[in-house]
């Protein structure tokens, strides 16, 4: 019996099984090969996220894949250059190496995510936007300076929204509540000692 997993490097495939109706028809399109190659599930939904200013200064870097410091620096440098070279009217997606880059500029900060080739770019834009909303709610009308002077908070907020490159919490309220509690705990622990 054929394996039920989607074929990997498939250029041909059997007809869909429809029980005992003999062999049913396949349109010239579907049924068999030339079918769009299936997406193997990615190593991580998001590979990394970078925040940088218009002058190319890094404000946050979150890596969900293991890379050496040197490689991270190289990637950061090249990607920042590439994104900064984009004209304002261009679309938010670009192909870079074997990754898809989704970026969006909010005021003076670029938010840049790298996703795998088979991921959904549009939802990544939503992820970026949700993160910005969270920052905005937390800092009250967030600007780049907030993120510079409170970079640890920016990380903490991100870590309540995404985990291991995946979305962990879809409710804005819950994320902000968790941060509040952690902040409170932190203040209390400082007083105690």
């Amino acid at each position: 019996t054929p394996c039920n997993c989607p074929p990997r490097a498939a250029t041909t495939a059997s007809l869909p099984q429809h029980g005992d109706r003999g062999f049913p028809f396949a349109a010239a399109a579907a049924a068999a090969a030339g079918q769009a190659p299936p997406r193997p599930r990615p190593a991580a939904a998001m590979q990394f996220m970078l925040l940088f200013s218009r002058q190319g200064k890094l404000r946050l870097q979150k890596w969900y894949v293991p890379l050496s410091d040197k490689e991270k620096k190289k990637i950061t440098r090249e990607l920042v250059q590439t994104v900064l070279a984009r004209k304002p009217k261009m679309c938010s997606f670009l192909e870079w190496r074997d990754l898809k880059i989704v970026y969006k500029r909010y005021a003076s900060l670029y938010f840049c995510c790298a996703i795998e080739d088979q991921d959904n770019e549009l939802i990544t834009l939503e992820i970026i936007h949700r993160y910005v909303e969270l920052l905005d709610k937390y800092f009250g009308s967030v600007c780049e300076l907030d993120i510079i002077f409170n970079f640890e908070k920016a990380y903490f907020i991100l870590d309540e929204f995404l985990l291991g490159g995946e979305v962990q919490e879809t409710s804005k309220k819950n994320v902000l509540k968790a941060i509040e509690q952690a902040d409170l705990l932190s203040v209390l622990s400082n007083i105690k000692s």
Partner: protein
Amino acid sequence: MVVPSLKLQDLIEEIRGAKTQAQEREVIQKECAHIRASFRDGDPVHRHRQLAKLLYVHMLGYPAHFGQMECLKLIASSRFTDKRVGYLGAMLLLDERHDAHLLITNSIKNDLSQGIQPVQGLALCTLSTMGSAEMCRDLAPEVEKLLLQPSPYVRKKAILTAVHMIRKVPELSSVFLPPCAQLLHEHTRNRLSCILLGTITLITELCERSPAALRHFRKVVPQLVHILRTLVTMGYSTEHSISGVSDPFLQVGGHSSKTMTNTSPLSSPQVATNTDTSRNAGNAVLFETVLTIMDIRSAAGLRVLAVNILGRFLLNSDRNIRYVALTSLLRLVQSDHSAVQRHRPTVVECLRETDASLSRRALELSLALVNSSNVRAMMQELQAFLESCPPDLRADCASGILLAAERFAPTKRWHIDTILHVLTTAGTHVRDDAVANLTQLIGGAQELHAYSVRRLYNALAEDISQQPLVQVAAWCIGEYGDLLLAGNCEEIEPLQVDEEEVLALLEKVLQSHMSLPATRGYALTALMKLSTRLCGDNNRIRQVVSIYGSCLDVELQQRAVEYDTLFRKYDHMRAAILEKMPLVERDGPQADEEAKESKEAAQLSEAAPVPTEPQASQLLDLLDLLDGASGDVQHPPPLDPSPGGALIHLLDLPCVPPPPAPIPDLKVFEREGVQLNLSFIRPPENPALLLITVTATNFSEGDVTHFICQAAVPKSLQLQLQAPSGNTVPARGGLPITQLFRILNPNKAPLRLKLRLTYDHFHQSVQEIFEVNNLPVESWQ
């Protein structure tokens, strides 16, 4: 000496106050020295602040490895502030390649089992970000316990940590598979979307790793579909939604998981109609639906739905949506060619995009959509694009146009015109073989010699800078100069050209600094050829030739000297040597085949000592004998289907291995002058493969339009249909439609083939379904 250490924010201010890079470096080095001293002294109170400063400095690009051990100490501290910064430091500074990172395993284990919830959260977060394979193996039991804890805050993090662990150590799947059922069960009771989201991700990851898990989780698919449906149709809670779309993240996750289990997304049409697409969130969900449909083996109707959704995306004002649509359509164009064709006008519109990445995609897609019925219209658009497109797309556009022209050119003259246009517009960007291709094309079209040379002359007279054009023009003028001067060509306005003008033009090319050495070679040779074509005396030509006898370019000099010798010593041979060239054989396997064919045909006529007419019918009789089908030879098949064995001995081709006995063609369908013919090829290198070329011809008085051929084979075989050459067959023997079927039959099962044809003919729509009988045994044995 105890100096009160800077607060983090003060340090940041100081660094930003630095006017130059050197100043910044100074400030940072000073501070790092303090931080190092503080670490050495082991001050526990301010350790977290020191590390935070170090992390800031690290982000600016300065070394911070001496803080690694401090991370460990902070994580081990009981103060929450310390742990928070310590874990952050671990994620930023510790590297799984160095064994030092393993030292936090124990602390994590303690925090996971004994810590309060926020602490557990920190530990899980760190583990899922930088946890190496060893760490994952060590800590799997702890994470497993947390999966089923009552607190959703911890549970959702534990689930995603499990996902990370499975990615790092696939064997851990067996640990995390059993709890999934319970997690799903919990959701139906408590409806916690964060848990559901995590669980879906976990299940997807498990299915990815093992087919056993896949089978196990097939059962939950109906449940997931139900959840999705509920999300879409019923109300939503505002905190989870984005601009009116209920929890798009969850919807997207749901679709991805269905991709894994390869089931038909029954809810897709519902999602498509119910989702508000005025904002990106809605479109994101819709896009995921499309991706799901594309990835699993969907029914035809759903695939068409997907293509139509993408077609709608193309009209969206948001550039990102258009980009995503173009990219996905490119993936679908091979398999769902006719559905994508419907959106061709919109795709062509996208060529005018200002964003280069969009216009590039539009170009690729447009080129893929060219077929014999739309080739003229498409070429017009593409050529207009070529004139205005950005330089980095020129080369691709030019070669795309030339390729498409080669495949689908309706007439030779159109083909020549197209290539000419490309050469004048983007001459410097065409591939090297364009010149050779064009010269051969012109050479082969005898009736167009006059036309070609005239057009090329005009183009050359205007502009001698585009090298490929100049080369072809020079060659042409050389070959057909007499036709140029004769001045009578019905196809374009008559233009009187006299000899002096032609010679002057070629000399100009020779002398121009823009001409490449190869181009000069062409021009010189052309001049030489003209010496036999023109009626006037050859003094001017002789002069030029002798001048170039002392040219610095060796190749040119050699030619010139040879030509000069031709004038002086071998004048009697000149005319013969410079005669019109015979058609150059196109090199490649095709040439050998044709040569073989012509040899076979020659031998046949020798073997049968009768004039050609009855000989043709003899051939037909042989065909009858063999396959019982009435000899349907519109175009003789490349491999002659007569007694192949006997012929081979006759021919005695020592260097070519005897080809396998060719399979006879089969006519499978005929109705009112419309015929369908199958020809079979079994490539010797792949015994399981059968290639069937389906040819549809039309000898009636009415055109056949919207022709679609569908096929089905038994389950044990695999069928692949390539895009047809078109879907129109003009009347009275017009250009037939061909389509290639690839059938893989590794088990040599008996071949059965069912065909379904739909087309319009004589203003009626025709549909025929039939099974092909008398399939030759050689096609599957």
